[in-house]
């Protein structure tokens, strides 16, 4: 895909989001209206997206795939427990940094549109697997059962964190991120886990 196509895709996503912000109703976001506003043909947009749900699904995938690529690079380079802890922490940092100004709406759609929910559930499993690997290597010595339970809890907390952070102003996000990471660290230091 070339740069022009990518730019157009981004413009379509932004238009769809701003239309949703204005009208509050997804049924009022239409591909013909977006095409008219962007001064491109409907066919041009339809070659990327067949429905409005597709627009939001692709945007969701793009955000997460980029985050996974970043995360995987760090995980790959990790050798010591310290490195793995760092990869664990840097993921949350990157996540917060990369949130768009429309992160609240994007989250809401990912929890509402059926295809987006499916992707969200699938991605959640992927996130959990990576967190499990990092906990295992970053805080070694935990038995499998503890590892599984702690990975589940960290994933639960992370998804609660997402819901919280997209609804607060950007300047407050860093503060809660620090507290959130400290809370997870305290929890993971417990090798035997209760």
């Amino acid at each position, binding site marked *: 895909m070339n740069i022009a196509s990518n730019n157009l895709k981004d413009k379509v996503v932004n238009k769809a989001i701003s239309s949703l912000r204005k009208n509050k*109703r997804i*049924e009022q976001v239409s591909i013909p209206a977006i095409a008219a506003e962007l001064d491109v043909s409907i066919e041009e947009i339809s070659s990327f997206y067949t429905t409005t749900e597709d627009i939001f699904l692709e945007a969701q995938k793009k955000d997460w795939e980029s985050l996974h690529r970043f995360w995987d690079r760090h995980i790959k380079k990790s050798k010591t427990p310290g490195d793995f802890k760092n990869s664990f922490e840097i993921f949350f940092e990157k996540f917060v940094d990369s949130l768009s100004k429309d992160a609240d709406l994007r989250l*809401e759609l990912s*929890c509402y549109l059926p295809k987006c929910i499916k992707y969200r559930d699938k991605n959640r499993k992927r996130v959990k697997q990576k967190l499990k690997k990092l906990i295992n290597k970053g805080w070694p010595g935990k038995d499998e059962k503890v590892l599984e339970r702690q990975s*589940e809890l960290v994933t*639960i*907390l992370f998804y609660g964190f997402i819901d919280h952070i997209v609804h607060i102003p950007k300047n407050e996000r860093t503060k*809660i991120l620090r*507290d*959130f990471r400290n809370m997870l660290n305290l929890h993971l230091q417990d090798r035997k886990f209760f």
Partner: protein
Amino acid sequence: MKVDVKKKVRIIHKAMDSIRKSEKTLHTISFYRIADELNMPFGELTEFFLNIEDIFLNEQKRVNQKLEIFIEEGLDAAKTANDYKELLENLTTEFINHLPDHADLVLSAAFYLPKCIEERQRAKKYYRTVFRKIIKRGWPGKIDTVLERQTDLLLLSAYGLYEYCAKSGKRERKAIQKDFVNMINLHLQDRLFF
């Protein structure tokens, strides 16, 4: 609005089943179709609920009201720090017990349907106030900023737990609840908070 509980429950279950089977977005489900599937005249159906949003709002409020009654009674009865700690622990059990099988659909609606979003925001505000009070009385001696920060962390954790439980079976919900409470206890024991 009619108060024929049995009929109301039948409508709710049918609507949820129909939505789950269709894999459609909630707002596109035809209210006429639900009346049809229930073998109920459309006019009778609207004596109970005005539209799909109304059904979801009713479900959302039903669980919230039960929990709020439990919380208010618990707060009235609590005298010692231990009472408040117990209230928080019991609240998570109560929450899990009241979550219906279709909690995932109700959660999904709470991210999009306007009245459900409003109810979600109201409930979140209420829980924040309650959590702050419980932490203050159950783990006394925290300064105000610590109290604020820990309240936010507890709130986001609780919403993470909600999402997980809404999508899990009853057995998984119970298993995670114990770990969740232990983790929160560990976190709140930290008087000065990092």
